Every structure is written in C-alpha cells, then in structure tokens.
C-alpha cells in the first residue's frame, strides 16, 4: 500500500485532517479511563480503606450486576435506541427463576432467561416492527413487566433459593467472585460481537445512519429485535446475580437499574446519538459508578445523597459526549 504521505495532499485531507478526528476519539476514550482513575485516586486519598484489595473486589462485585445490564444497554444505545425496561425485566425474570428453581437448577435458569428473552423480544418487535418510539415502548413495558412481577406472587417475595444456584451466581471461583467473572465474560463476548461480526457492524451502521443501512440492504428490523432481545436476556442474567446475592427474589428487585445501566454505557463511551459505543467501556462505566457509591459510603455520605451524585455523574457524562462530538 502506498504511504499516505507520499501522495499529493488532497483537498479532503487538507480540509479536515483525519488525525484531528482521531484525536477527538482518543480524547473521548481516554477521558473515561482518566475520570475513573481520578475517582479512584481521590477516594484513595480521602479514605485508606478504599484501596484495600478486599474493597476493590467489593466494588467489582457490587458493579457486576449493573455491568451485565450495561453491556446490553450499550448495544441498544449504539443502534440509537434506549431500553428503560431493564430493571423491570430483572424483577420479573428473577421472580420466575426463583419460583422455577424448585424444579431444579436448569429449570430455574432456563425459565429466567426465557422470560428475559421474551420481554426483550417484545420490546424489539414493538419498536422495530410497529415503529413505535423506543422511549415510550420501554417506558410502557417498564410498568408492564413490573406489574407482571408483582402479579406473579401477589407482591410476595420468594425465599429459599437452592444452594447450587447461589454458589453459581454469588460464589467464588479461584477466589474471584463469580459475578465479576460473569460480567467480564459478557463484556468480552459483546466486544467480540461488535468488533468482528456482521451483526456488530450492522448495529453501528444502524446507529450511525439508519437510512443508509436500510438502503444498503441491511435488515433493520432483525438487527433491532436482536439487540433488544440481547438486552432482555442480559437483564435476566443480571437478575440471577441479584437474587443469588440476596438469597431471595423480590418483585420490586431491579428498580432504578435503568439509570445505572444507561449511565454506565454513556460513561463508557456509548453515544446517545447512536453508532458509537464499546461494551468494554461500559464495564469501566459500571466500575466508575460502583466506585462512586462505594467511596461515598465509606465516607459516610448518606445514601440519599448517593442518588444525587449518580445522577450528576451521568449527566456530566452525556455533556462530555456532546462536547467531544462538537470538537471532534
């Protein structure tokens, strides 16, 4: 291949040098990591417990549920969509899973994942096939799925989950909490999906320019339904961790998870304008939010204030997204 520099400079290159936009990209990616590292440094200075290995593992453990959901959310956001129903899917699928666990481990897991799949598929069909606005559809299903979870046991929690189930989703493997391993695996798989598969490219294309994607022969409906279904299944999976850690399933489990997941995705570099995002970034995003909560707790900041802090950080992340976009 010819060296770029040996060619006469073209108008395009003169007008807007590619390296500039790349610098914008780097800035964008680095800002996430820098922000996360700075947060860790600040808390480490303020509180000596914070940087103890056991606490760092705690942070990872606490972030893992959110991380799993955030990976699915990242894929959705990359198509320029949004899924507000993830928290309710967590609640509903974990209730069903807890109930079905009485028929065996696989029955519980299978039923829980199936519920997540069906919920996500329903979102996808309503959005992609009936062309309803994603925000409204998932706001509606947020309420529907939560209602279904409450109806399922008439609002009663389910206690007594099997030992194997708890060992699987809240145990340790080689001294590492299994939820952390689960989150890492999910994020890695999603990264490979985005980076190396046709589906991944189609997700980026749809988010980047849906009309162009359609006119180049991409099946928009199928890709969108797939993405919402993935989000549903991952929410179901996150629900397993939630109930395994608590030891019981509550119909209101997972409330408010949507903000955490959206926040993690955006902090991790996903752009609400579509076409940009990185599942590994959302992992860092989840860690950032987790560290924030953990650090504030260690500093005895009342939990009410932690809500405020999370919200502020999420809005800052969106602001940073817009800002780097304009400069880039």
């Amino acid at each position: 291949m010819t060296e770029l520099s040996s060619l006469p400079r073209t108008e395009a290159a003169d007008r807007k040098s590619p390296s500039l936009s790349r610098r914008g990209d780097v800035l964008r990616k680095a800002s996430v990591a820098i922000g996360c590292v700075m947060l860790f440094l600040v808390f480490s200075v303020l509180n000596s417990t914070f940087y103890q290995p056991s606490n760092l593992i705690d942070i990872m453990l606490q972030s893992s549920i959110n991380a799993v959901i955030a990976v699915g959310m990242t894929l959705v956001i990359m198509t320029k969509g949004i899924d507000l129903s993830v928290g309710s899917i967590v609640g509903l699928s974990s209730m069903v899973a807890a109930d079905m666990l009485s028929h065996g481990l696989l029955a519980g897991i299978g039923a829980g994942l199936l519920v997540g799949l069906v919920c996500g598929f329903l979102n996808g069909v309503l959005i992609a096939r009936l062309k309803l606005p994603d925000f409204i559809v998932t706001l509606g299903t947020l309420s529907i799925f939560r209602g279904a979870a409450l109806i399922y046991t008439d609002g009663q929690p389910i206690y007594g989950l099997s030992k194997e189930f708890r060992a699987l989703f809240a145990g340790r493997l080689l001294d590492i909490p299994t939820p952390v391993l689960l989150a890492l695996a999910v994020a890695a798989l999603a990264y490979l999906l985005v980076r190396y598969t046709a589906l991944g490219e189609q997700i980026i294309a749809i988010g980047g320019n849906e009309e162009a994607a359609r006119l180049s022969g991409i099946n928009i409906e199928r890709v969108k339904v797939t993405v919402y279904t993935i989000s549903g299944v991952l929410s179901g999976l996150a629900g397993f961790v939630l109930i395994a850690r608590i030891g019981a399933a509550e119909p209101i489990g997972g409330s408010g998870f949507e903000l955490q997941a959206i926040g993690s995705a955006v902090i991790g570099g996903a752009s609400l304008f579509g076409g940009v995002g990185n599942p590994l970034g959302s992992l860092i995003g989840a860690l950032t939010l987790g560290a924030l909560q953990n650090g504030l707790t260690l500093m005895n900041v009342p939990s009410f204030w932690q809500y405020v802090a999370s919200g502020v950080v999420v809005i800052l992340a969106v602001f940073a997204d817009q800002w780097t976009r304009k400069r880039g």
Partner: protein
Amino acid sequence: MLSVIPQAEDGESRPPALRMTGIAKRFAGVQALKGVDLDLRGGQVHALLGENGAGKSTLMKVMFGIVQPDEGAIALDPRGAVRIDGPRDALAMGIGLVSQELSLVPQLDVAQNIFLGRTRGLKLVPRVGFRRQARAILDDLAPHLHTDTPVAALGMADRQLVEISRTLARGGRIIAFDEPTSSLTPAEQESLFAVIRRLRAAGKAIVYISHRMNEIRAIADRVTILRDGEVVASGPIGDYSEARLNELIAGRELSREMSAEKPAPVASAPVIELRGISTARIADVSLAIGAGEIVGLSGLVGSGRSAILRACFGIDALSGGEIGIAGRRVTLGTPADAMRAGIALIPEDRRGHAIVPMMDVERNFGLGNHDRFASLGVIKGAERQRVARRYVDELHIRPASIGTEMRNLSGGNQQKVVIARWLATGARVFLFDEPTRGIDVGAKAEIYALLRRLAADGAALLVVSSELPELLLICHRIGIVSGGRLRNIVDNDAGLTEERLIALAAREDNS
C-alpha cells in the same frame, strides 16, 4: 402606502454597502478562510463561486453572524466597523441570508414568519400591525401570497419569497442567496431572478451563490472565486469565460475530462426492463435499458423521477406492472431483494441515505455486503481490506486509506466509496439519483468518467439529474418525467440541446 423597495442610488460613487477585509477563520486546526476581502455594493449582484469547502458558506455565515471570524473586519456603510454577534444582529443591521435550509417555522403563517423574533418576552404581538406591514411588503414582492397562509402549505419558491420579505421587513439592504434555485422549477427560477433583478434595481446589495454557470451568467454583475479559503479572482463577470471560471474554481484545466466520448452501448437484450410499473407516485412507466447504456431522466423535483428509481430498488411497493432483470421477472419487496437482483441505488442525499459518517471507509464499503465479507456472521477482515484497498486504488479515492472515517472525505470521494460498494456486490444495474449533487467541479469529471466506465463494462445505468448539461454529456437517451409518468424519451444525438429538452418538458407540462 409605504414603499419597502426604495429607488436605486448610484452604486459606485458611494463606499460599498458592506466591506469585509482580511476575514480569517480556523476550525479545529483547518483554515477555512484565509484573509478574504469582499466588497458588496448596492445595486449589484455579486456571485460567489468555489468548490464545496472553498469557504463560500463560511464567509456567508460570518456575514450573517453565525460564525465569528478569528481575524478581519466588517464595515457597513454608513455605520463603519461593526461586530455581528448573531443572526439577530445581522438582521437588525439589514443583512439577510436566504439559504437552502430556510429558517421559517412551517406551523406559523406568512405574516408571523416575516415578523418572527420581533417581539420579546411577554409583550403582546401586534398582530394587526404586523399583518398590515406584511401585506405592504408582499404587495411589492409577491402579491399572490396571503399573509395568513401557514408556511407549511407553501412551495419552496414561495417560502423563499417569505424569507426575502422577512429581510426586507427589517430594512434589509444586503441579501445573500445560497444556492436558491436547487429545488425550483424553471418557471420559479425565472420569477426568482425577476425578484432579484428588482431588488438590485432598488439598490440592494445581493450575494449569489450557485454551482450553475448559466445562472451566474444570467444574473451576476461581479464575481469572486474562492479556492481553499482564499480569493483567487474577483472582477466583473464579463471578464471571465465559462471555461476560465471553471478552471479558476477547480484550480486546473477540465475541458478534456469533461468532454470525453460516450462509449457505444452494446446491442443486447435489456438488462433491466420496466413493464408498465406503477406505485403511489408513478403511473405506467415502461423502459428497457441494455448493457452499456446510460439513460437519463429529466423532470422537476417531485415529478416522479426519483420515485421511478425507488420503485426499481424495492423501496416503494409496486401497485402494478412488473420489473424484469436479464429477462427474468423479479419481485422487489425491500432494498435487500433489489441488491440480490444485482441492482444498486446511489441516492441523492449521500449524507442522509448512503453513508455512515462515523464509520471508516472500509466498513462503509462493506456495508450491507456481509454475504460476501462474512462467514457465519464473522467478518473476514483481511479479505475485505484487500478488496477495499483495490477499489480505493482503482477509483482514486483520496485519502488513499481505508481507515479514514467517511465524514473526513470530500463529497466526490464519498460518492466513489458508495459506487465501489455496489461494484463489489456485482451489481449490473446502477440507479443514480443526482450523481454529482454537492460535488466539486473537478470531482464531477471523475464521477462522469466512472459512469462511462461502468457502462463500458456492460452495466445498465439509469441517471436522474436536474442538470441538463450533465444528462446531455453522459446519456445515450433522455426521458422526460412529469406528473409521475415517463412522457417522452429521446435519443441524445448531436441535435439535442438544453433548449430543446426544456421545450419538450414544457410541452409535456402543458399537455
């Protein structure tokens, strides 16, 4: 009766109505304007020429206060040096901009739009007064417009008149037109020119931006040519021949590239055949295109030209008739079907419909071609890179790197990537909608060469264009579309001229 268009004053004896000196502007490291001087005089139409990205629009944005210059000064007669902080300032100083994206609110009526932004806060809107003043302006400029018609109900031409009226209502003395005719019919263009001539006669200073040389010829008094953010020439329009203007714009000689011979079509069975197809927008269109043949479609925007292409690409559903490819009937329910049938669409709105700006050249090239470049859903990266590099080389796509993000390419190079995408799918039928819209003069010649090569390789091409010279240059046959029907199709032989095509189109319109 108050006269909003006062009598002309002598243009040359006074200082210029607006003088820009040494305007420089940098965007994120790119020098968009480098010390540009521009004098605008009352009673003159000043044409601003240049390729896309040459700085014309940036200069107009500076004049209208949308962009603040890094250096340079703007002086208004008789106020002297001014600082224009935004469109609001510009309008108050009598500077107006009629751009392609009009800044009208469709839901409001004509009078409301003319006086939009003239009241503030909780002050009552003096509706009756506004309506009366609007009427006075419209009586002078566009008597056929009613003050209470919602702008949404108006066509493009009338919307422009509203935009002009808004400028006049602010006592506008300087009015810039940025490619105003791109979506007007010939008759509407003529009446717009009449309006511009009247504004000129009334002593207004007019800036006129267009890519169409015949328009510049018809309307401009002076011309300034920008290239890479600098003024390369400026003077009375009479001093420059068309060839000279094109050279100045492109920075090189183009005559040879522009006038290459059309390849002779191969006598063959039709590659694509439309048999009486109808959709919601077109009726009973029949057309057969053979291998190596380029057929043009002429007609007004909205006449159904593009709808014919959409029907051929499976976007608009057929309500009647059938489409045959290489003698076999095909059913095209989606663009994906059309793609499988070997049909390619290169849409008019490249940014909106053809490319994903944030993705790199390689991925834009491979977009939708995952049948070829992926196995079991996993991308075959090495193979796709190899093929993409080959096309970048062959089509002279610049910069010659498949990793560049699409948005950093010029319009002409983006267009080449889109064409390469379809070449790689093995398409035999190419549907082009305004193939050189928004593409620089220099790159245009390359796109024409590419179209000819596609034909020479045996593809069938159907080209929609508003630019008659373009159709005359590249097509073997030209069809005239109006009211959703293909009215007439003529051979593009030596006897065919722009005038005859316009006459043919007019005849069809009246029949």
